[in-house]
Structures are given as C-alpha cells and as structure tokens.
C-alpha cells in the first residue's frame, strides 16, 4: 500500500485516494494502519505487508523548498506474528 504522509495542526495524516489515517504521533498512526491492514485481510496468507509512506513535500513552506525539497519517506512492515513470538506485531 502506498500512502502520502502529511502533518496538519497536531496530527500525522497518511492517505491515498481510497483511504485516510491519522494519529497524534507516528506510533499512533502506525497502530491504526496496522489494525486496518489486519482487519481488512491484506495480511492473509502473507508473512508480511509493506506500507510505503511518502511525505507530501508541498507542505514545506515555499521559501524553504529552494534549500531542501525533500522531508522524509518511510516504510512500515507489518509482519504476521507466529504463535511463539511476542514482538509487538499484530496477529492476523
């Protein structure tokens, strides 16, 4: 899944043309995305699922863009947890 990442007010927002997630911290945002991925069955029959988040650099003020156009991108890997693991990942 590919998402565009933004920071608005006090929230991180990740969205594409079909869905949108938000969280006050990146951890909070990640939890919501993980929950969605698991509940929607995207992790079914897979060991892991990749969510790529591209920061919307248009949100950097215009005067800064001449110095740096790029803020950051991140990738979230959601693994299917095995029965013997307790590493914080969500069980499908």
């Amino acid at each position, binding site marked *: 899944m*590919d*998402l*565009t990442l*933004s*920071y608005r007010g006090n929230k991180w*927002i990740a*969205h*594409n*043309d079909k869905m949108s997630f938000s969280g006050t911290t*990146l*951890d909070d945002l*990640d939890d919501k995305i*993980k929950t969605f991925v698991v509940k929607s069955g995207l992790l079914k029959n897979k060991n892991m699922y990749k969510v*790529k988040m*591209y*920061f*919307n*650099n*248009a*949100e*950097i*003020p215009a*005067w*800064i*863009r*001449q*110095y*740096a*156009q*790029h*803020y*950051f*991108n*991140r*990738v*979230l*890997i*959601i*693994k299917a947890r095995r029965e013997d693991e307790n*590493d*914080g*990942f969500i069980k499908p």
Partner: protein
Amino acid sequence: MTDLSNRKWYTGMLTQEDWWAVWLGLGFFFISLLNIWGIDLVGWVTYPTKWVFHVPEGGKGAISHAFYALGKKYSLTAKGFYSKLGWWSVIWTYVIFGIATTIGAICMKWDIKRFVAGWTIIYFLTIATWFVGHHAFFAATKVNWHKYGLNFALSLGGGASFILALIVGLIIGNFFKGFANYLSEAAKPEWYIKTAIVYLGAKLGYLPIKLSGFSQKLGKVATKLTFELFIAGAAATVVAYMIFWPGIYVIARKIFKLPRKTAAVLGSGISICGVSAAVATGGAVRARPVVSIMVSALVVVWAVIELIILPGFFTHIWPGTKDPLVAGAAMGMSVKTDGADAAAGELLDIFLRNKVQVETNGQVVWPEGIITASAVMTKIWIDVFIGIWAFILAMVWVYKVERRPGEYVPPSEVWHRFPKFVIGYFVAWLVLLAIFFGPGHKGAPEGMALLKSVKAGVVPVEKGMRKLFFMLTFMSLGIITDFRKLKECQFGKMVWVYFVGLFLFIIPVAIIVAYIFHHGMQLPNIAQYVQ
C-alpha cells in the same frame, strides 16, 4: 491533498530548482562549447568594467563602455557583432536569461506573472548595483588608480558590487516588506547560486586551460592544485562532520537543555549544512516539520551575518594572505547556506587577491577564482554527505533512539537528498579537464588552437554568467533576509545556541580543520604574465 505515492528516482527533474540549476548551468556550458566548431552563441553575456565620470587624458573608464558583451573581447568568430552590442548586452542578457529562467519557473509551476515581474526588477536592480559598484572609486586597485585619474580609491575590486547588492537587498527585505514579498517569487538565492556553482565547475576546469596559455608548467600546477583541493576538501569535511555535529548536539542538550529532537535538528542546521541539513534531520528523527522550519529561518539569517563578517575577518585578522586556501576552506565549513558561502568565498577571493597585490606592490598576482573554489569545494562535499548523514541518522533514530517495530528507512532517501546541482558542477569540470588532457595535449603547442576556441566559449560562462548569478544571489539573499526573525520570541534559546555554537565552536574548529588539511597549499603567481 496531493497524492505522491508514484514517486520515482527521476521525479523532480523538471520541477525542482536543484535540477533546474543543472539545466541552466550545463545548457549554457554545452552551448559555449560550440565554439570548438566556430559557432559562438554565448558572446552576448554582459560584463561591467570600471568607469569614472570624467576620464583623464590618456586614461580610461568611459561610462559608454561601462558594460560590454564578453564576445567583444574573447570571441574568435563573432567579435565584430558582439563589439557593437555595448550596453545593449544588458538587454540581451536580460531577455535570454529571462526566457531560460521563465521556462524553469513554468515547469516548477510558479506564479509566472509575479516571477517575470520579480525577475525583471531584481535583474535591473542587480545591473544598477553592478554598475555603481564598478565606479573606479570603489573598484580600482591601487596600481590602477592613475588610469582613472584618482589619488585614492577603496580598492574593493568587484567586491564593492557584491556588497552593494547585498545592502540594497537587505534594505528591501527589512524596510519594504510588501515589496520584498512581491519579489519573493523571483528572489531565489539558492537557485541562482547553484547555477553559479555549475559555472564555477567550468571555471575550475578552465583554470588549467587559462594558465597553460601563460605557460605549460602553470597549466599543470593549476590542475594539481584543483585536484588537491578536491581531496583535501573531502577529508576536511569528513573530519568536520565528526566533530561539529556531536559538539553542537551536546551544547544544545547539556548547556541549553533543549529537547532531543530539537537539539538534533539544530545540531545539523548549525554544524552541517544549514537548511537542507535541518530539513533532512527533521525528517530523519521524525520531528514535527515546524521544528525544521524554525531552525531553517535561523540558519538563513545567521548565514547572512557570517557573510558580512567572515570575509573581512579572514582577510585582515587571520589567516590573511599567508594561507588563502585555509581561509577559503574554513569559509566553506563555517557558512551554512550555499548562497552565503559561495558569496562569502567570492568576496574573500577578491579581498585576498587585492590585498596580496597591494602588500607586494604588484609583484604577486593570484588567479581569480581558486579561493572561491576552495570555499565551494568543502561546501559541496558537505552537501553531498547530507543525504548519507540523514540516512545514518534516520537509521539510528528508527532502530535505536525511538525504536518503532516494523518501520525502516528506504535507501532511496540518499538519492532524494543528493544535491543534484553537484552533478552539473562535476560534469562541467570534468568535460573541460578531458578536453585539456585529451585533444588539448595538456597545453602543448599542438593543442593550443583548440584550447583557444574552448576559451572563447567558456570565458563568457565562467566569468560573465557566473558573476551575474553571484550578483543575483547577493541581491536575492538580501531580499529574503529579515533580521526581525531573530527577535521573534518563539526562537528564544535557539538563537543563543546558534550564536554560541557558531562563533565559539564551529568557526574555530573549521579554521583548525582547514589549517590541518590546507596549510601550505600555494596559489600560483601569475604577475609576470598579466602585467
């Protein structure tokens, strides 16, 4: 909201200023090389010369010749045409660069009406300050005073024009805020300086060609020196990185008690490369964008303060003319935006060359541009390493400091952060080196005909276009610099961290590191060839 999920490695080639610096820089550079086949399409570039109101008998400096097309002096195939342009070369340059930059602005989806209006005003203000700054009272060096009928002059060389452009820009930026805001669409110091740095790459490659015109040995000396600067600049930058960042981070955390993320962003902003490092680090440590934005505002203002102070300090206090390349390299590691650094390096170049000429009564003359190159070389290495540093920092943050299960940093971050204008700089340099070492026969007599035709094209680029874009940078830097930003209360401690970190830690360490790696590197003396 914009959906950016289809980003590719080539995304931004037509929509980012960084890439447009490459297109503008390399575009005109390659057009200049058509001179090899006898086609001169760059001789129209305007250039100022010193002038006075009343020309002494037998002297020089008529206002009617204050601007001329460089092709008048250097063209091999169209000298007659370019000789007639005179002041009209100002208009030719305006129209041609106006079209080129407007194409860039269209591709970058800027407000075109505002850009064209802003470009026009900034260009002609720049030309006006360039003209005034070349009055012989400001610009004539001591050995030439008599030619202009003067008994005294400030002897600032071309530096007077740069200082005037900065002053005019700062007056607009600080006292005419509405006007400055109107001009902001075209006041792009980073775009202009990155373009100028591509032209500086051409200058670096042209140095051996120019000096081999004096003697083949000098050509080899210039080649060796530029390679030494390349290596020493890289080594100094790596050492500086390892000292600067931890030092500033500790100062911010331990002395000023700033939060961890703010200290990291500030550490990069002050110690590495200003705005781009602050933004890169903000992203790497997942700080809220506003932290990077606040630090960036500080960086821009402090860089201009450094630009005002450091060239004079390095020229008249230390290291002066004893170690000009130490001064240049230290400048590159101290001034935190490309624009302010290259501008400060250019001023330093002019000041030191004038000073050594005065000190030795004209017995020592250094070639123009090598001190600027030493300032830009360290800065370019710093820029190149930003992407790698941001990547390392992001991994440290994601895997160690704030471990988030499942998150990782894509290696493509390094490419996204890579300063693309550096490609233009190295391409221009290496193409000319290849010509010098290949068909130019290292300046041997059998290669001189070709090297002369290369010179006819490259001089308008490395001299005329580079100086014009430097002037545009000084003017634009002034326009976008608002000193009131320092007073805004929300910066509070950060202003003081910046002040303490920069003047008591970064600059002294930069001087020491520059001394270690550049001490003893000598500039060639070309006095016997130019007098």
